[in-house]
């Protein structure tokens, strides 16, 4: 065979966009970086950085430096020179760093010099901005932040160099161990937080519950989008169906608690999944996406307008809390704490909620992993690859698509009823398109079809949004007038763009095969030799 040599190690060859990107990064920068080229190696990098900084200076002038505010009797012009200068410097050094470390690999000395300049500049900015009392603190802070920035770029450059080797050899094993480590951490997480952060444990566990909910939703949607390849922009509809099923059932019938309603909500959501599935069976790609988007909106609008049944914009309140075999998490007689002879603490209910969603999420994962190895799961993956080939292999594509929709919807329904019981109150406002978009972003960023990728992406996205709420330290860089919460979504969007540029197929793009050939007898050398010589 002419085009194939033996390449056993090269199992995950980059393809498509990834190859193009590598070529693009590699191509234009080779000549400038050669030792012995006429210009000084630093000159080109400096020139490039100055241009970038100038661009920011021009563009940012009207956004950062000058600001108009409505004042009594007209507009008031205020200036923010510091913010403007700092943004220019940040871009200048950022660009320089990228040039020296990544685009145009330079000598070690130059790297150190640029890094030192960056650290010095950052420290200077911190010192200028700080009050005279914390000069030493701000010096340390500046050095640390500067080193972190340099380290990040250097690590990125290093990783990029080893990308092929890393993705083909290290990642499968790494993924397994990372998964195990994350599992163990998730298992002990509530106690970790109550022990180490007793003052803020409620906040952290609440955040963990939120992240876990999105992990579960991501895993549910991963079946539809990642495995079966059906782009669903209205996944939140099933989340809403689950939440409203439980809320309506429990408020109308006394005897229906969380544990009875949970399977019912799942079944109802699966049923709606099939209802959505039927009309869209013949659609693929963009067309499917539009219809599912519409479906999500229809569900929300119906919930909003069917006042007699759903309470419309008022929502439904008084949704019962989950119980542990009939034990409620309440103060006094007959409560959970009383039964086990512990002191009552409101954190107990949060820990309980956390374990419910943890178990639900793990269940979702286990079922998905099992299904992937079963004929229906394989059919989902094959459907994503090639629908015509599927049909010619005798796969009933109608049933395959419907089961994918139903299974994904069912997990969405479970998560929805958990959401209802956690909040105690639901209204159509919780089920907007933005939710669908976030869940889809989690799946896409994580890498379509990757389970561990969904976990990483959920932690980064949901945890990241929360983290960005606490960006007060940036005031030290940009001056006290800087309000980081305003830039939260901007930074978030930037991070998403960067991830897509860096890893176009998601954080975890490798996929573990579900089948391996178990050798029963050794094949003689004569058999192997047949494959040679052509």
């Amino acid at each position, binding site marked *: 065979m002419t085009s*194939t040599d033996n390449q056993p190690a090269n199992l995950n060859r980059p393809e498509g966009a990834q190859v193009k990107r590598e070529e693009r990064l590699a191509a234009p920068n080779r000549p400038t970086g050669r030792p012995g080229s006429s210009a000084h190696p630093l000159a080109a990098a400096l020139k490039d950085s100055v241009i970038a900084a100038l661009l920011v200076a021009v563009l940012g002038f009207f956004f950062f430096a000058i600001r108009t505010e409505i004042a009594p009797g007209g507009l008031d012009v205020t200036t923010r020179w510091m913010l403007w200068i700092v943004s220019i410097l940040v871009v200048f050094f950022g660009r320089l760093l990228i040039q020296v470390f990544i685009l145009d690999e330079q000598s070690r000395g130059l790297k150190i010099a640029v890094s030192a300049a960056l650290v010095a500049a950052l420290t200077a900015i911190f010192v200028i901005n700080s009050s005279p009392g914390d000069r030493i603190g701000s010096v340390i802070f500046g050095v640390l932040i500067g080193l972190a920035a340099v380290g990040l770029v250097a690590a990125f450059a290093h990783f990029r160099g080893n990308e092929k080797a890393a993705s083909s050899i290290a990642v499968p094993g790494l993924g397994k161990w990372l998964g195990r480590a994350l599992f163990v951490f998730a298992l002990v997480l509530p106690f970790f937080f109550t022990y180490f952060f007793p003052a803020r444990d409620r906040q952290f566990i609440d955040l963990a519950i939120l992240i876990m909910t999105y992990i579960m939703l991501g895993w549910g949607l991963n079946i539809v989008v990642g495995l079966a390849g059906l782009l669903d922009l209205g996944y939140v509809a099933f989340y809403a169906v689950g939440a409203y099923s439980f809320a309506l059932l429990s408020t109308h019938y006394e005897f229906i608690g969380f544990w009875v309603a949970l399977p019912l909500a799942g079944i109802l959501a699966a049923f709606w999944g099939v209802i959505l599935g039927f009309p869209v069976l013949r659609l693929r790609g963009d067309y499917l996406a539009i219809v599912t988007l519409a479906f999500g909106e229809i569900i929300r609008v119906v919930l909003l307008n069917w006042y007699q049944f759903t309470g419309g914009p008022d929502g439904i309140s008084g949704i019962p809390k989950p119980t542990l075999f009939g034990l409620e998490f309440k103060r006094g007689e007959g409560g959970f704490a009383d039964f086990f002879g512990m002191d009552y603490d409101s954190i107990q209910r949060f820990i309980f909620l956390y374990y419910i969603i943890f178990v639900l999420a793990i269940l979702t994962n286990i079922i998905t992993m099992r299904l992937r190895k079963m004929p229906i799961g394989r*059919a989902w993956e094959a459907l994503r690859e*090639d629908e015509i*080939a599927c049909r010619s292999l005798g796969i009933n594509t109608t049933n395959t698509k419907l089961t994918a929709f139903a299974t994904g919807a069912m997990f969405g329904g479970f998560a929805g009823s958990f959401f209802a019981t956690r909040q105690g109150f639901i209204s159509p406002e919780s089920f907007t398109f933005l939710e669908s978009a976030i869940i889809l972003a989690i799946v896409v960023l994580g890498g379509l079809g990757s389970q561990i990728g969904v976990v990483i992406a959920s932690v980064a996205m949901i945890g990241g949004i929360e983290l960005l709420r606490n960006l007060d330290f940036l005031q030290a860089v940009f001056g006290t007038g800087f309000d980081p919460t305003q830039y939260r979504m901007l930074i978030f969007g930037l991070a998403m763009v960067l991830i897509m540029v860096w890893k176009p197929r998601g954080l975890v793009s490798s996929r573990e095969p579900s089948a391996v*050939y178990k050798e029963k007898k050794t094949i003689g050398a004569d058999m192997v030799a*047949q494959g040679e010589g052509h």
Partner: protein
Amino acid sequence: MTADTAPLLSVSGVETYYGNIVALRGVDIDVQPGEIVTLIGANGAGKSTLMMTICGNPRARAGRIVYDGTDITRMPTHEIMRLGIAQSPEGRRIFPRMTVMENLQMGAQLVDDKHFDDDVRRVFDLFPRLKERQVQRGGTLSGGEQQMLAIGRALMSRPKLLLLDEPSLGLAPLIVRQIFEIIGELNRNEGLTVFLVEQNAFHALKLAHRGHVMVNGAITMSGTGQELLKREEVRAAYLEGGAH
């Protein structure tokens, strides 16, 4: 091959349309059990359309398709495939992101799991190349290997009738010869019935027991492979320019 045994596949008077455009104008073809029948013709003659019509997509607007005594003209594709027909579709259509093993597994979807190991070994014996590449993703295989995989995948369903749509498409002559040898071997050793659609008339007619020539959606010539190879019209239209 005698014509008085009941044919395994019988296509009679089949007409297929794409919208209002006629693709097949009343095609009659019989395939006897244990036979290799080939259909040759130029681009756009309707060869692949006939193949797809047998599989139920697109549907025949007129005529009848009978397989092994069952009328399959109106059956959905996946049910037709369950009757013991396997197809290696045009352009191979292997699953690019799945490994060789997983592709083979997809072929075995309809068969009892207990046969799986034996069937995989059989495919690997036929195509030792695939054994070397078993953990590789389908999309990273060479064209010839992909064709081997497509045939191997079709064989995994233990078919009685194998439909092959242009197995020589885009392959080096050496590989083409190798693949045709294996098809012949399968027919001789296991009695597999093959219906082969080909543009590579020389190889196809040399291999086949009987052949048909299709022009513009209709069969214009029929005969044994050797007869057709000698016919002046066939040589002029399909064999000049050295197809070897």
